[in-house]
Every structure is written in structure tokens, then in C-alpha cells.
């Protein structure tokens, strides 16, 4: 059973890479929310390096929060899955535990 990691503060790619390296299970789900969403605006998070780091993980982002900030069209990446609050609850229930970063 995978864990759900909540990324709630803004990370640069180096920080994110270190965080990802510490994950025991590379198949864990990583959810960007609140100011963590701003990380995905960075050009670094559209790079080959980001794709390599997250190859085995599911990258999620809260759809409502993207729309609230009017950046849903900017963060349009096939690696990133937009989820609703309801789906967030589903992921929470299906996860072994949640870790907030």
C-alpha cells in the first residue's frame, strides 16, 4: 500500500529531488497543494530531470487550487494528474499513511 505525500510549500527541483530520494517507496503518490503548487510553475519542473525523478511516482495536483490561481492552463503536463477534492479524499483513504512536507 502506497503513501500519500503532501507537498504544501514551494520547492525547487534540487529540494524536490532530495525529498524524492528519501521516499522508501518510489511508487508513492505525491500531491502538490497550497503553495506547493507554485513549484510546478517553475521551468525546472518541466525538465527532463523532473521526468526522470518522478518516472515511477504519481504526481497529483489539486484542480480547484490550480483554477483558483488561474494557472491550470500553464501547468499542463502529461506527467501531472489534476484531481478534485473528492479524489483527494479517495487517495487519502486508500493510502497507508499521509506525510506532509
Amino acid at each position, binding site marked *: 500500500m502506497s503513501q500519500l505525500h503532501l507537498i504544501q510549500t*514551494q520547492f525547487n527541483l534540487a529540494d524536490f529531488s532530495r525529498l524524492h530520494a528519501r521516499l522508501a517507496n518510489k511508487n508513492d503518490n505525491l500531491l502538490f497543494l*497550497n*503553495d506547493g503548487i*507554485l513549484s510546478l510553475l517553475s*521551468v525546472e519542473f518541466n525538465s527532463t530531470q523532473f521526468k526522470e525523478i518522478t518516472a515511477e511516482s504519481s504526481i497529483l495536483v489539486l484542480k480547484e487550487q490550480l483554477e*483558483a*490561481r*488561474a*494557472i491550470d492552463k*500553464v501547468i499542463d503536463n502529461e506527467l501531472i494528474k489534476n484531481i478534485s477534492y473528492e479524489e483527494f479524499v479517495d487517495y487519502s483513504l486508500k493510502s497507508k499513511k499521509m506525510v506532509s512536507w
Partner: protein
Amino acid sequence: MSMGKNKSMNIKTNIIISRSSFSNSDFKEAVDLGLVCAAFDQEVNLIFVDSGITNLIKNQSAEKVDDKNQVDILKGLEFYDIDNIIIEQESLDLTRLETSHFINSVKIKTRAEINKLNQNANHLVSI
């Protein structure tokens, strides 16, 4: 109504905003400070850097997360002669945002240009 036509004192205040408005009240406090300075005939530059530039993205719908659209408070600034709403070019370059994503009234200036503005300012406030 224009409250700042006579800049007799010629005091310049630069206010630097470096964080997004969704996590705190920095943006509103910065604009409030700018309005107070302008009401006392000071020249005000609102300078947005780092993730602060996201405050100026147009078509935000903060009501989707039960918040208020902070960007709307910028609409009245021209009545107070605050027409310098500046985005740092280098901060913009680090993101996938383009000039077209921002409200119309913003000006893009390089870090060197902003440094010059800051050198000429009487007061520099970072929020």
C-alpha cells in the same frame, strides 16, 4: 479623485512583495501600505519578485478555494497615482508564465533596473 497630483515632498517608497497571496495577507498589506503612502503624496512602486509575481495573474477565481480575489484591489490604484506595478524579469524567467498571463497594468523590469529604482527610493519595504 486623485489624491497624489502634487508630489511636493517627492518621497519615493518602493514596496517589494515576494510571496503568493493565497498563503498569507502580505499582498493586501503591501497594497494598503502603498495606498497610505500615496495618500501622503509619496511616489509608490509596487515591485513583485519570486512567487510574489503570481499575485498579478489575471482571471484568478479565488472563490473556488473560499478566498477573495486579491488582484481586484489593484484596480483602484490608478486613482491614487500608483501606476508602477512592476514584475522582475528574472523572477518571470524562472517560471512558465508569460507577460500575457498577467493583468494589463504591469511593467516588466530587469533586476538591474529595479536595483536602480531601489537606490533612488527614500524608503524600501520588503513584505
